[in-house]
């Protein structure tokens, strides 16, 4: 590139001195040199990149690097397994709690149904003493509380009915 620069400066000087033919030849030569220099630069860059890639690929697939990657893999697997244990334990605990709550709900339903049945019987025995609308309303309340498993409301209802008796 430096040669080309010198050549072009020389051409300028020759043109300034009004010397014929030589500047044209020198310009052609300069252009050719510039083309060759550019091609050489590109080739050099390609070569450097290729060498860099090869060197890094070789390092990447070297036994030491492979073993290092394997160590990292095993370590991350170990962490995964630890996390998996925590998640599985959580899952088992969740389903266990759910199961226990279902059992409790079933038991609650049985006893609430029994209490509601008792209230129904109590209401039937008092049917004559109560007005039709009160009887109907109390019966409806009993059904609502039973369906919503509201034991406290059922107990209160039972007390209300007992006071009416």
């Amino acid at each position, binding site marked *: 590139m430096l040669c080309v620069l010198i050549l072009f400066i020389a051409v300028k000087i020759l043109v300034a001195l009004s010397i014929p033919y030589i500047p044209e030849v020198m310009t052609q030569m300069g252009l050719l040199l510039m083309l060759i220099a550019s091609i050489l630069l590109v080739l050099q860059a390609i070569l450097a990149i290729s060498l860099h890639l090869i060197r890094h690929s070789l390092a990447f697939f070297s036994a030491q690097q492979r073993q290092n990657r394997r160590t990292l893999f095993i370590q991350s697997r170990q962490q995964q397994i630890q996390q998996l244990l925590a998640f599985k334990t959580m899952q088992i605990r969740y389903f266990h709690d759910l199961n226990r709550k279902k059992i409790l709900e079933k038991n609650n339903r049985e006893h609430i149904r029994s209490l509601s049945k008792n*209230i129904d019987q109590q209401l039937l025995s008092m049917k004559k003493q109560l007005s039709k609308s009160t009887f109907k309303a109390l019966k409806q309340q009993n059904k609502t509380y039973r369906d919503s498993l509201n034991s406290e409301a059922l107990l209160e209802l039972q007390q209300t009915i007992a006071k009416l008796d």
Partner: protein
Amino acid sequence: MSIKKWILHLVGIVHSVKDENLHWQATNHELNNKLKHQQALHEQSLVAELQKRNAQLAHDLELLKTQHETELVIFKTRCEQDIKDYKHYLKALDQLKLSIQNSYAHLPEAVAFTIHHHAKQLLNKMWEANDFEKKMQLEMKLIQFMTVLHEETSHYLEQDNDKKLPEKTLNLIQQRENSRK
């Protein structure tokens, strides 16, 4: 001519540098080989050490997997046993309710329900308590409650008295309700 001389001089310099390099390579050839060999050996030993460590890690990983599997199986079994125990307790409470109803012939259903419900609440609190000390306290409360109830029903049957309600038990429930408020 001077250019030719100058070029020849340059070529001479290049050749002398090459000679020097060749000479240096010849004298240091053995040392160079030795160093390369040492480096290769060092790399080999490093790789071997890493391989050994990885094998150990893989072995540890397998052990950890087995250990976790065993832990999970134990935990699952414990949960299943826990459910069985819970069912057993609920059944016992149901039977307790039945026995109260059998003992006190005229006991209102609402009272039997309240007693049973209170016992069940105690049981649930005990079951859900995370703190061991609190769990023990609640268990003691439940046992105390059941003992009072059991004593009262058996006393009632033995003496055949005319009490219509298990008053001690109901008082205990009342006390606990008041203390909670």
